[in-house]
């Protein structure tokens, strides 16, 4: 009885031992993966910070202005002059609407057979 129990205990302890070691190695593995990922994120954050700095440099007016000046001739561009700005008051007013009442009366008289132009032409002697 005792012997069987001992055999069982020995086997179970060997099993548990291997289980514990497997867990230990798995954890160590995960930890090293984590470290590698942290290092990767760190280096990528570093690259990102450099790219952001690059972008900031490229966006500076102090960086763009010399480029504009360099290509001033080729692109035929110049700083804006005051005279180039218009104002709302300078925009012409909408043209006057046609006198629809006069047109209506003209068409009505034409329909009625009276041609006012014809009367003028006759008066002038042009036929």
């Amino acid at each position, binding site marked *: 009885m005792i012997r069987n129990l001992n055999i069982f205990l020995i086997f179970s302890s060997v099993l548990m031992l291997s289980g514990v070691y497997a867990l230990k190695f798995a954890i160590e593995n995960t930890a090293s993966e984590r470290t590698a990922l942290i290092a990767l994120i760190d280096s990528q*954050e*570093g690259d990102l910070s*450099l790219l952001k*700095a690059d972008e*900031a440099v490229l966006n500076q*007016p*102090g960086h763009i202005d010399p480029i504009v000046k360099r290509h001033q001739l080729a692109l035929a561009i110049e700083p804006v002059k*005051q005279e180039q*700005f218009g104002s709302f008051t300078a925009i012409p007013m909408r043209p006057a609407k046609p006198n629809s009442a006069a047109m209506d009366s003209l068409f009505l008289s034409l329909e009625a057979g009276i041609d006012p132009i014809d009367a003028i032409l006759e008066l002038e002697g042009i036929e």
Partner: protein
Amino acid sequence: MSVTADDLGSTIALDGGRKVRGNLTQARIRWMVLALVLGFGLVGGRLVQLGMVVPDTTIEGQARDAITATRPPILDRNGLEMAVDIRVPSLYAEPRRIIDVEEAVRKIRTVLPDLSEPWLRDRLTGDKGFVWVQRELSPAIEDRIMRLGIPGVEFLTESKRFYPGMSEASHILGSTNVDNQGIAGIERHMDGENVALLQDLGLARGNALAPVELSVDMRVQHVMHEQLVDAMSRYQAIAAAGVMVDIHTGEVIALASLPDFDPNQPATALVKDSFNRITAGIFEPGSIFKTVTLAGALSSGAVSITDQFDARFGIRFGRFTIDDFHGKHRILSLPEVYKYSSNIGTIRVMQAMGKEAFRQFLTSMGFDARVPFELPEMRLPTVPKELSEVGAATASFGHGLSVSPLHMVAAYAAFVNGGNYVPPTLYRRDQAEAEQFYRRVITERASAQIRYLMRLNALEGSGSQMNKAALGYRIGGKTGTAEKVVDGRYSASKVTNFFGSAFPLDNPRYAMVIMVDEPKRENPQSGTTAGWNAGAVTGRIVQRVAPMLGIAPDFSPLIDEQLVPPELR
């Protein structure tokens, strides 16, 4: 029992032997127990000892977190980065882990030949846990050193401040030291506020910090910087500086001072003469101070815009006579006093106000103390506590007292915005916030009259050079040519020139002060007075920045007519 013992003596001996063996076993067990207790005690003691050790996480006296800590990015008012953090590798060594110092020294010097050999050997020898070798290197160098495979030589990623605008906003931003702590400018001010606390707590890591928004507009800043650089060469000046503020909120839109430095190389900030002339430079303001005298007198009611002043003869104070530069020597109206920049007329205006009231007005304008401002580089103005008769007379046209250009721009802003003094700031501030700081210094009526006088001076007076360039932007201003004191007397050839201005005067939004120090003639036809240099620079700046600031040109003469006070129409 004793009889038995006598008969069986050998049994007694047998009993003794068993007893001896039993005793021996017991003694062995005791020794074993003692050995085990001692052994475990030793292990336990060591554990307690290890538990008491405080691990040294500092790097040469500084917390590791403080070194890897980041600073918040600084943005201009349009969200453009003015300062960002970049991650850079820094080389350090753990001397106690280095096996062969000579080999390590030789190998490191193949990549970093600038390091001195004895210094490096000394650095790597010993039992220290951490020493810096070289900080803020490039990723390429990191790669090459890692390839060498020296044990005990490692890299740590540090945050380094980078200023993409280079020297353009140097005096606003200031700079940081190698430990990423602000040592000048707004960087230092930020540390004083909250970044230092975050770093101490080890929280300021990653990019989690909210960016700091400044009131500066980098486009305007660029134009101002560029024009000042141009002025330095055009007029062969020894220095030039300028500042522009929003008159309603006190926000500084641009601030530049030349010669300047590159904040990416903080050592260049130590060069002589590269100090911030706007905040830390105090100068005799010269005639731009006449605006202050006139504003005070008009506001007090002692003089009115229609008054006449006798400027026929110079004013005598004992042995001295104060006269005009280009004297008209006739009776001048108040607008003429301003237009012709008459010293005599200004003294008469000040005298009408009374020197005590005039001195009181200077105090109310904040000319006795530093301007409340974020930059740490500040100097106290020197304005005499008590003004003598002659002292008050010279002070009325800006001599015998020294103030910073920032004082002047804050005063000009108050004069044109309706009469409210608002302390300037480098942080974003909206109208409602700014109104809490408002302090009335002159009346609304006097403010309108000052706007008219400034515009008049641009149209007919010393500001006409400036107005030529900035035509249509309704700018007005006052020139100031202050002679420098050389060997105890005023020198006619060495002058400091100022131009204080505001635009667009029909609905003023910005005030500006430009300074050009010791300018020479641009060509034989021009002069060295302020209108030729500081004024012209102002005009060119306004011409370029007004469209950026959303100000459309308007050539209508009606606008200038409307600026004329009703009394003079």
